């Protein structure tokens, strides 16, 4: 049997097109892997009809019909992205039995290229969390050490790619939900420029920073898939036409953020990061220090803005329009309160209440209003920094994956895990997390940040870097 895990997305599709193997064979290989690694709890469901879809693609090939550039490539979907007539639960009790009435734009784009959407991945409930522990299905385990967290919220997606359950998994990233689990599991994850990928069909957490994007094993595959799913969409008025093209240079200038140097947790991780800087210098690139004075306010800014949006976005989950009403309800008000209290987990409740707090009279100007202004300043400071450099590098996370249960009772400490990823989301700029080293056999990710719509340049710099880089460990 062919080991499809050693092939890239492009090679798998080429093989299907040239009849070296069939889409059914490819799908069976990956679904077998899903069963083999069931204990990791990365997958919630394998869709029953996926095999029919694979057969359809094989028939098209057999008949000599035109097939797409992702012919027969299996894709795992995150459990907060709609796939028509399939379950989507947001890993919550509230949506446990919800059937998607339509497909998200990203799903349609992938299917138009003949990809096979075949399973849905575990995640933090309503995409709120950094560990994948806030799921009604239980925590997803880290691909490198099952006693550790997968990261979140797209933990199931990242673990799926790392364990070869699929060559592509979709995730959503609001403040690092793709990049952090990608870093924890040694795979590649991107958060594109805000608006690059349509959010139509993704359950909104914080609409002003949510983005759907792919997780893959290599940088090349990630770029390939992002090009398929990007594009403006009449269903999402915030989408932009990101061309993803750029002019190559011989040497690039790399920025390091002065204010973030203290955010790296220990001397070993600092050694890993300094080694990455040394690689760029050995490549003949100039490495400069850049100033983002307000970046230290990113965490409070993010945890004010996103819960505020979440409190509004999740108001529609009332037990009538979604889910079944609570049996304990005695009147209309208690129907809403009981249904929501039974349906949401602790972290979701915390963020909704936090959002209502920062939006309430007496706190709005001091918190929400000020955060919006700080957001503008951070965006401006990044724009100024990118006048001096092509890309900025940071570690993706302060350290490697932590133990399951270690931070679940300390929400603030969990939020601080996002110190390197949230500034990117607040500024709306693109960033890619690429595995670059290990510490105690656990992967570490390096994050490449760029100006608006410079994804292709970031992919190029990341590719050149990984070719030259030798990790400390």
């Amino acid at each position, binding site marked *: 049997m062919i080991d499809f895990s050693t092939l890239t997305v492009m090679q798998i599709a080429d093989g299907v097109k040239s009849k070296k193997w069939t889409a059914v064979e490819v799908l069976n290989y990956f679904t077998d892997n899903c069963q083999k690694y069931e204990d990791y709890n990365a997958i919630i469901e394998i869709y029953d009809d996926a095999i029919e879809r694979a057969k359809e693609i094989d028939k098209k090939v057999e008949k000599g019909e035109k097939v797409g550039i992702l012919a027969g490539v299996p894709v795992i979907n995150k459990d907060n992205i709609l796939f028509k007539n399939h379950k989507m639960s947001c890993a919550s009790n509230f949506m446990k039995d919800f059937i998607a009435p*339509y497909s998200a734009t990203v799903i349609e784009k992938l299917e138009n290229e003949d990809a096979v959407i075949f399973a849905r991945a575990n995640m933090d409930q309503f995409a709120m969390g950094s560990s994948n522990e806030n799921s009604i299905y239980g925590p997803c385990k880290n691909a490198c050490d099952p006693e550790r967290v997968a990261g979140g919220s797209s933990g199931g997606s990242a673990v799926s790619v790392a364990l070869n359950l699929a060559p592509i998994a979709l995730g959503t990233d609001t403040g690092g939900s793709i990049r952090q689990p990608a870093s924890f599991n040694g795979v590649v994850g991107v958060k594109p420029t805000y608006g690059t990928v349509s959010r139509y069909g993704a359950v909104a957490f914080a609409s002003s920073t949510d983005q759907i994007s792919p997780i893959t094993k290599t940088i090349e595959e990630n770029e390939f898939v992002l090009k398929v799913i990007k594009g403006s969409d009449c269903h999402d008025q915030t989408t932009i036409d990101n061309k993803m093209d750029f002019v190559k240079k011989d040497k690039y200038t790399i920025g390091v953020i002065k204010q973030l140097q203290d955010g790296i947790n220990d001397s070993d991780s600092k050694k890993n990061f300094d080694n990455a800087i040394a690689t760029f210098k050995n490549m003949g690139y100039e490495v400069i220090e850049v100033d983002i004075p307000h970046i230290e306010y990113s965490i409070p800014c993010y945890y004010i803005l996103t819960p505020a949006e979440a409190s509004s976005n999740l108001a529609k989950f009332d037990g009538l329009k979604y889910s079944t009403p609570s049996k304990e309800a005695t009147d209309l*008000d208690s129907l*809403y*309160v009981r249904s929501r209290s039974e349906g949401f987990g602790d972290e979701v409740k915390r963020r909704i209440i936090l959002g209502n707090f920062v939006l309430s009279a007496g706190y709005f100007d001091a*918190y929400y209003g000020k955060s919006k202004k700080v957001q503008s300043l951070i965006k401006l400071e990044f724009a100024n920094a990118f006048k001096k450099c092509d890309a900025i590098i940071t570690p993706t996370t302060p350290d490697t994956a932590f133990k399951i249960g270690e931070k679940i009772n300390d929400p603030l400490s969990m939020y601080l895990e996002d110190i390197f990823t949230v500034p990117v989301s607040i500024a709306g700029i693109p960033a890619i997390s690429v595995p670059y080293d290990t510490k105690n056999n656990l992967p570490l990710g390096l994050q490449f940040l760029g100006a608006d719509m410079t994804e292709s340049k970031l992919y190029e710099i990341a590719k050149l870097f990984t070719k030259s880089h030798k990790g400390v460990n």
Partner: protein
Amino acid sequence: MKVDMTYLEKLSKLEVDDKEKFLKEFANIASCFEKFEEIEKLDDGLPTSKTVKISELREDIVIKSDIDPLLNAPKKDKGCYVAPLVVEQ
């Protein structure tokens, strides 16, 4: 910082089981917001709107849809949702 939990629960249409634990965690999180006090007055001219330009709106026209609005209705009858009786006395 004074947090009126009953008021916030009412605004959020939620009930929290362990209020004491929740308030402790909440105060801990809210303490990081106090960092904002370090920032001196911010320019009133700073934009507070979207970070990217909004693309053009689509035409507001009626289109045929194959979406079944009753797909997820727990109970349905004659093309309508059946909701529990919630009219109060």
